[in-house]
């Protein structure tokens, strides 16, 4: 198994380690619910260095990437990050990723850990004859600090005014410096106002040699603000409440981005991109032959997890893609991919109409609007994700 630069710290902090995408990663340090609540009320620190970073650059990069992702990159400014699915010819999803515009023809693509090698090969096969695609993952560590106190905790480490970084914007060379157990440290990092939790926060891309220093320093500085180290367990419960897709569950080669509710990141009016025709054909299908992702709240006692069959009106209509307890809502929730004529987007029903079958037992559930949780917006940091 591969290890991130923070591996020793995870073990020292009591992290329960599991294998994820070929990496040894912490699921939790203390308790998943406690870590989850820290992110919602104060802040959490995540080591996500297992993610893949691919640098794509050279003349023609924008045009090349436009043909490979479904979102429109043309309006993205230098210093802006764009979220997009990346599709295969049949419209199925190869991955979902963030694309950071570093320069005119210089982009950093951040991809799921389990798909890094496949995405590298895919991109090279699509654009590799025209532009350079370089795997920078081994030279890039990534820490995420997420929660309402994230900015307050991170600000003392830099002269860069973090309040000026809006959501889905970044600064490429932020000089971070501070004190860690080994003494004074400094490093240059790319700091973006992005995340996977539904809270305000930052993702910090930096030299692996400095990652441990920053990790130590942030934990020490954040302690007074309630910062906790958080593992993959809380990362999953947080993103589930925010209804953010997890590749392999809500997105896959068998699930296209329209089915996953990512319509606003699929610009079918854009000129040709891989999968565009298949997605246009899909859109033209009758509702009975389409699927949609919906949110469910369990009414009967029980937890509906990934793979559970879902019924509507006594008929099987699909399956749960992700499910579990919601610490914030104190209910059991689930995302489910169901026949589009059973999905009632935008019109949540008060009556339980769905059944999730858990260990052969039918549990009543009601459809609820997504996301399950949305953070209260304050005036300090506003703005919709760039599309």
């Amino acid at each position, binding site marked *: 198994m591969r290890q991130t630069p923070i591996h020793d710290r995870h073990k020292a902090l009591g992290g*329960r380690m599991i294998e994820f995408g070929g990496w040894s990663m912490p*699921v*939790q340090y203390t*308790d*998943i*619910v406690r870590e989850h609540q820290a992110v919602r009320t104060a802040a959490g620190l995540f080591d996500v260095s297992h993610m893949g970073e691919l640098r794509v650059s050279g003349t023609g990069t924008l045009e090349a990437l436009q043909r490979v992702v479904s979102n429109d990159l043309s309006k993205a400014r230098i210093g802006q990050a764009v979220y997009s699915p990346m599709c295969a010819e049949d419209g199925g999803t190869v991955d979902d990723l963030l694309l950071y515009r570093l320069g005119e023809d210089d982009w950093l693509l951040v991809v799921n850990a389990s798909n890094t090698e496949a995405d590298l090969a895919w991109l090279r096969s699509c654009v590799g004859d025209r532009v350079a695609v370089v795997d920078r993952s081994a030279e890039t560590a990534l820490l995420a600090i997420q929660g309402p106190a994230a900015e307050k905790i991170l600000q003392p480490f830099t002269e860069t005014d973090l309040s000026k970084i809006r959501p889905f914007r970044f600064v490429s060379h932020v000089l971070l410096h501070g004190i860690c157990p080994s003494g004074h440290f400094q490093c240059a990092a790319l700091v973006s106002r992005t995340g996977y939790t539904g809270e305000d926060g930052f993702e910090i891309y930096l030299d692996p040699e400095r990652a441990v220093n920053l990790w130590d320093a942030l934990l020490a500085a954040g302690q007074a603000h309630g910062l906790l180290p958080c593992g993959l*367990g809380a990362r*999953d*419960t947080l993103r589930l409440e925010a209804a953010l897709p997890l590749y392999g569950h809500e997105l896959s080669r068998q699930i296209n981005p329209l089915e996953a509710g990512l319509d606003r990141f699929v610009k079918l009016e854009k000129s040709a991109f891989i999968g565009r025709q298949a997605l246009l054909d899909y859109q033209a299908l009758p509702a009975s032959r389409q699927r949609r992702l919906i949110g469910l709240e369990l009414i009967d*006692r*029980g*937890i509906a*997890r990934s793979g559970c069959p879902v019924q509507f009106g006594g008929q099987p209509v699909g399956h749960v893609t992700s499910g*579990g*307890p919601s610490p914030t809502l104190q209910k*059991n929730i689930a995302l489910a991919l169901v026949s589009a004529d059973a999905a009632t987007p935008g019109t949540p029903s008060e009556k339980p109409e769905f059944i999730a079958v858990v*260990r052969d037992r039918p549990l009543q559930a009601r459809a609820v609007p997504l996301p399950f949780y949305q953070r209260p917006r304050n005036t300090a940091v506003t703005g919709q994700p760039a599309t």
Partner: protein
Amino acid sequence: METRPNLLYTKDHEWLLVESDQATIGITDHAQNALGAIVFVELPRVGAVLKTGDTLGVAESVKAASDIYTPVSGTVIAVNEALNDTPEAINDSPYENWIARMELSAPDQLNDLMDEDAYRNFCESEAI
């Protein structure tokens, strides 16, 4: 890792308190620690007739559902309904918060189970 002297134990980290032909069953401190915070317990039906190795119930943590197996054959005569409201009680006191009580149909099966010392040795050897 806590254990109690008056109980019998299984390799699946269940404990049994035996009183004449009845056994009260729960999961050990080792098991509750491995599971993490328990958020849901599925109890067996009172009256269920089970054989050794059948699923007695399910303890769910945030991440996963874990089956609890019955180490003995018999009939479920009582279940701990309190766990429906406070499943996490098992984490706090795994030996006080039992899961089900069974009327044993084959008490000789108890001879196959471990006492406290044997269980502690077993856990130690598993940890290596």
